[in-house]
């Protein structure tokens, strides 16, 4: 990491790269220092609000959808390709379709985050819910446990590590969703800031904004990892 940063720094200076094309790393750091509080932070907060809101909705929604799909093998077979389709489709494409219904609202950005995040949570949870060892379920059956009881006490618990894998990937995807929502909808947020800075060739601001967004994603990710460590105490 340090070597890459050093190479970057040296090459931008040595080859006299135009800072509008690729600013040196120190340029970016100084932009980060100078512009973070007055320019980047307000936009980042807007994005963060949509991101967190969308994520917090996507988590229970995704797990719930996966839990419903897991109840039938046919449903699993139908749902899986659909989930992969929504994962592959860039959510930005859907935004113009949604705008007539919802308008240029912050709601639409939250929706983009949900659409970007939920599928990966559904996919991972579904794999977890449908791969519980048969004996673990048989044991519950041998004490006459109900289907709901088996799901709640065994299937869900057994799938938890897998569900968390989905939640962690979800952190990354929801950040992508929040930024692309800004870009597609405009109206503030770090994505809009990046777009504006790029069009005015304020490349250092572009990079500093991207850096701040990355930091946000990393922090979110670490929070979820921390929760996982506390929830899955038996590992």
């Amino acid at each position: 990491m340090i070597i890459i940063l050093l190479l970057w720094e040296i090459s931008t200076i040595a080859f006299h790269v135009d800072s509008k094309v690729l600013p040196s790393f120190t340029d970016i750091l100084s932009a980060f220092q100078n512009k973070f509080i007055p320019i980047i932070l307000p936009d980042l907060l807007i994005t963060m609000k949509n991101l967190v809101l969308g994520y917090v909705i996507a988590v229970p929604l995704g797990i719930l959808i996966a839990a419903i799909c897991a109840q039938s093998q046919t449903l699993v077979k139908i749902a899986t390709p659909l989930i992969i389709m929504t994962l592959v489709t860039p959510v930005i494409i859907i935004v113009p379709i949604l705008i007539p219904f919802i308008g240029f609202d912050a709601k639409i950005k939250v929706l983009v985050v949900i659409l970007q995040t939920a599928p990966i949570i559904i996919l991972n949870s579904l794999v977890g819910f449908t791969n519980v060892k048969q004996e673990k379920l048989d044991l519950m059956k041998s004490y006459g446990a109900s289907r709901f009881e088996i799901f709640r006490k065994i299937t869900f618990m057994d799938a938890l590590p897998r569900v968390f894998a989905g939640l962690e990937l979800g952190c990354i995807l929801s950040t992508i969703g929040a930024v692309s929502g800004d870009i597609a909808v405009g109206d503030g947020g770090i994505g809009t800031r990046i777009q504006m800075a790029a069009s005015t060739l304020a490349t250092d601001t572009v990079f500093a904004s991207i850096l701040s967004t990355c930091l946000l994603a990393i922090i979110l990710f670490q929070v979820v990892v921390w929760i996982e460590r506390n929830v899955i105490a038996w590992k």
Partner: protein
Amino acid sequence: MEMTKTKPFITLEHVNKEFVTKNKTTRALSDVSLEVSKGEFLVIVGASGCGKSTIIRLIDDIIKPTSGTIQVDGFEYDNTKPISKDFISRMGFVFQIPNLYPWLTVRENLLLPLKLLNINTKEHVEYAEYLLDMVHLQNYAGAYPNEISGGMAQRLGVIRAMVHKPEILMMDEPYGALDELTREQMDIELLDLWKQLGTTIIFITHDVEEAVLVGSRIYVMKSDPGRIVADVPIEFGTNRTINNKFTHQFSVYCDQITELIGEIDLSKIK
């Protein structure tokens, strides 16, 4: 033990079980009929895949037969719906693998049956502690399953099936993963418990010596299709000790059983 010819406690009549998978249909059990008396220590032996586990999974109502009838204590199972919780609480089942839930501690795993069956008398909780003690797990009660050894896990799997004091205990190769010495010790402890409690036991193993040591009667099974080929009473009486192993009669039984099982391999070679 003298076979008293009373009404059998557990009966299977003309039971067939087929497993249909994508590639093929397996006849796991073909026209299996058997009887187990109350208080009997029945052993089922046979090569891998002959349907041993399938028999006890049917009796424990984990799976339903393709055809045939199953009766326990005069009650005939309905092949379309699960038996009642009260009825199922009369049985305990030890799985071929320890089958512990990794998110529950040793004690929580042990107490799970009581929770599921809504049993919460002081007597049962005390019995749970007694069982923990018996298999030397009292110091690991708060540990998670991945913190205990394979042998400990297997012992926990066994006492978990006993914790609600079932009348019928089904054990699917319970000590398969233990070394021979520990296994013998566990077998003797199981015999003590059986004598003390009068539980009806159906015990599965592929170890002939173990079968003759613990069983009061042995069913020998063969595969393709899974069926019972012999019913061998073991006349050692209830006072079984490890010393039985060194008697002439013991090796006669072992040879007899081995021969009955061994025929399978011959027919497969042909």
